[in-house]
């Protein structure tokens, strides 16, 4: 192991094997490690710049090398996982139902993967993809959609009567999953249109979203406009646009929730469950994030009942 690249890969590999990162998705692990490198720069720099690791390199150079190697390593597992989710987990029957014609699954998957690969090269989009990807990886939307359909309450009404999705539970679940997958597409045109608050909440202005939708339609010709609109509107505040689709509102909440999700977390005695805690906090910050409060209320009840 002589090349710096090999050393960097070995170092990153060891960090990724750390048990403290168990229960996180690949992108969360990437964020954790980058943050770790940032926070501990002062302690890491002397050792990593030594003869044993990367002699003659200053910290910035070492940091860049490690981050690029980390991205490379994460991309391998991330794309393999996404490929598997897109080909094996998501059923595209809902697209047929929306377009009223046959759809070639392979072509759809190829288009989606191409777009996602392109998006993930942008740092903002990559960061914004952490929540949606974590939700897809752990199937977090699925369990809520399941409950929404068994309760047949507000969210179900919004999905079936307001958004008029004439489809079953499985199709809606896949619809939400594709919405999540394409949610970071709002960054395909850059993020300069975002205000400071928008950057904090991950939201974009309505007009900007419509502009993105126009571009997205050109990129993903096989995906129905309703799905693309749902994905783009998942980054539009419900305060600003009361006509945001129910799937968008649901995806926005689940994506935000999933950003800091950790599987198999040990909950302290005396604390509420993670989803219930997060949703209750989100209920109080719904205006800040532009969430639908009624949707949060129902999801909170679901989380409380299921001790999620």
């Amino acid at each position, binding site marked *: 192991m002589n090349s710096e690249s090999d050393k960097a890969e070995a170092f990153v590999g060891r960090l990724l094997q750390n048990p*403290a990162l168990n229960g996180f998705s690949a992108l969360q692990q990437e964020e954790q490690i980058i*943050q*770790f490198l940032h926070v501990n720069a002062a302690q890491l720099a002397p050792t990593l710049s030594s003869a044993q690791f990367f002699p003659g390199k200053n910290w910035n150079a070492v940091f860049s090398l490690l981050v690029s190697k980390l991205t490379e390593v994460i991309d391998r597992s991330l794309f393999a996982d996404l490929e598997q989710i897109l080909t094996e987990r998501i059923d595209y029957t809902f697209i047929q139902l929306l377009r009223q014609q046959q759809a070639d699954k392979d072509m759809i998957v190829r288009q989606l993967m191409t777009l996602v690969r392109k998006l993930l090269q942008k740092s903002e989009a990559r960061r914004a993809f952490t929540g949606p990807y974590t939700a897809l990886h752990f199937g977090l939307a699925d369990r809520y959609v399941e409950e929404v359909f068994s309760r047949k309450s507000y969210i179900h009404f919004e999905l079936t009567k307001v958004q008029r999705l004439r489809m079953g539970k499985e199709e809606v679940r896949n619809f939400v999953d594709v919405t999540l997958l394409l949610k970071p597409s709002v960054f395909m045109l850059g993020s300069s249109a975002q205000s400071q608050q928008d950057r904090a909440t991950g939201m974009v202005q309505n007009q900007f979203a419509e502009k993105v939708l126009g571009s997205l339609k050109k990129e993903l010709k096989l995906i129905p406009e309703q799905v693309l609109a749902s994905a783009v509107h998942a980054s539009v505040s419900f305060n600003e646009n009361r006509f945001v689709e129910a799937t968008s509102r649901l995806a926005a909440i689940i994506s935000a929730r999933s950003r800091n999700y950790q599987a198999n977390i040990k909950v302290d005695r005396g604390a*509420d*469950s993670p989803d219930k805690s997060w949703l209750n*906090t989100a209920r*109080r910050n719904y205006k800040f994030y532009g969430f639908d409060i009624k949707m949060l209320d129902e999801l909170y009840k679901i989380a409380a009942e299921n001790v999620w």
Partner: protein
Amino acid sequence: MSKTRSFLENLVLVAIVLVLVQTFLEDLATVLGWTVATRRALLLAGFFFDLFFTVEFLVRCYDAFRYRRLGFYLWFDRGWIDFLASVPLLLLNSGPSVLAMYVGGVSIIGVGGMLNVLKVVKAIRIARVLRLLRVLKIFRRIKNTDSVMAQRHVAMISAITVSVFVFILLALSIGGTVVPFPSIDQTYQEQAISAADYVAAEGLADTGREADLARFAATQSAILTVEQGGEVRYSRYDQEHLDRYFQAVDYGLLPRGPVDVFVDLTPINRDQAADNLRYFVLIVGLILVLMFVYSPHFALTVTDPIHVMRRGMGEKNYSLEVRVPSEYRDDDIYRLAREYNRVFLPMKDRENASDEAEPAASHLSMGDIKDLFD
């Protein structure tokens, strides 16, 4: 904590558990009338435990003194319990008992003398009550909760409850010797004395009156043996039985001129041992309830919500709400917790979201990669 210290602390913990078993068995042996050999073994074990805890107390005192913490140790670190559960027991209870066991012999007593000796025996028994304080020693060693505050709080309540109980028992026992209350002890003593007087006055120990003596003794359970001129005139049990089940503290001698009447003290001993067992079980029960019922309740209603709030305030990534049980929602702590859930966490969340320069803290720490740099 060094390995030696850790070993010694564990040794003390084992000794505490064992001494509690020994305390229980010693009284149980008296109640069930176990053999002299077994009771002697238990008594010796008790003596060595008292010696061990006395040495432990002195070592802790010396250690605390070296670091100028003697006052803290004695008053705040429950050193006074260590003291009461060791030195007085060695000096007033197990020490004299072991001495009596080895010196042996029977107390030769007159009417008043018997009462005096019984008072001495009683003083020893009174001191035994202090053994119950040993149960409290276990609190220092066993961590029944993760919270230092809960541990200290429950230990304090236990110390107060058990100490008050023990000291009241002690005061009542001492009061009983000063102001004799009518008791089974006293009645038994009076019966034994009047029976001995009757045997001497009626000449039942004279030659040829063995049948009368046997008939009379059959009605007086206190009479164990009657001797005259060194010759046994009556014995309730054969010699083998007496050797096997009776030791010095189990009988008393009432000399009446040429007649020696030996009286059976085991009913009194048994009665007092049964009392001790009841107290012991009561205290252990009290401690167990405090440990396993009150302590979790204290954790649930005080330390757990504090722990969750402390983590939420100290750790950037930690944002779990405090669970507020509906039955306690108006408790001060849960009113605070509700404000924490309602105001602090949403504010922290907004703050974290807006703080682009400082994203969420990493779950990794330098300690996690120590081996990489070795």
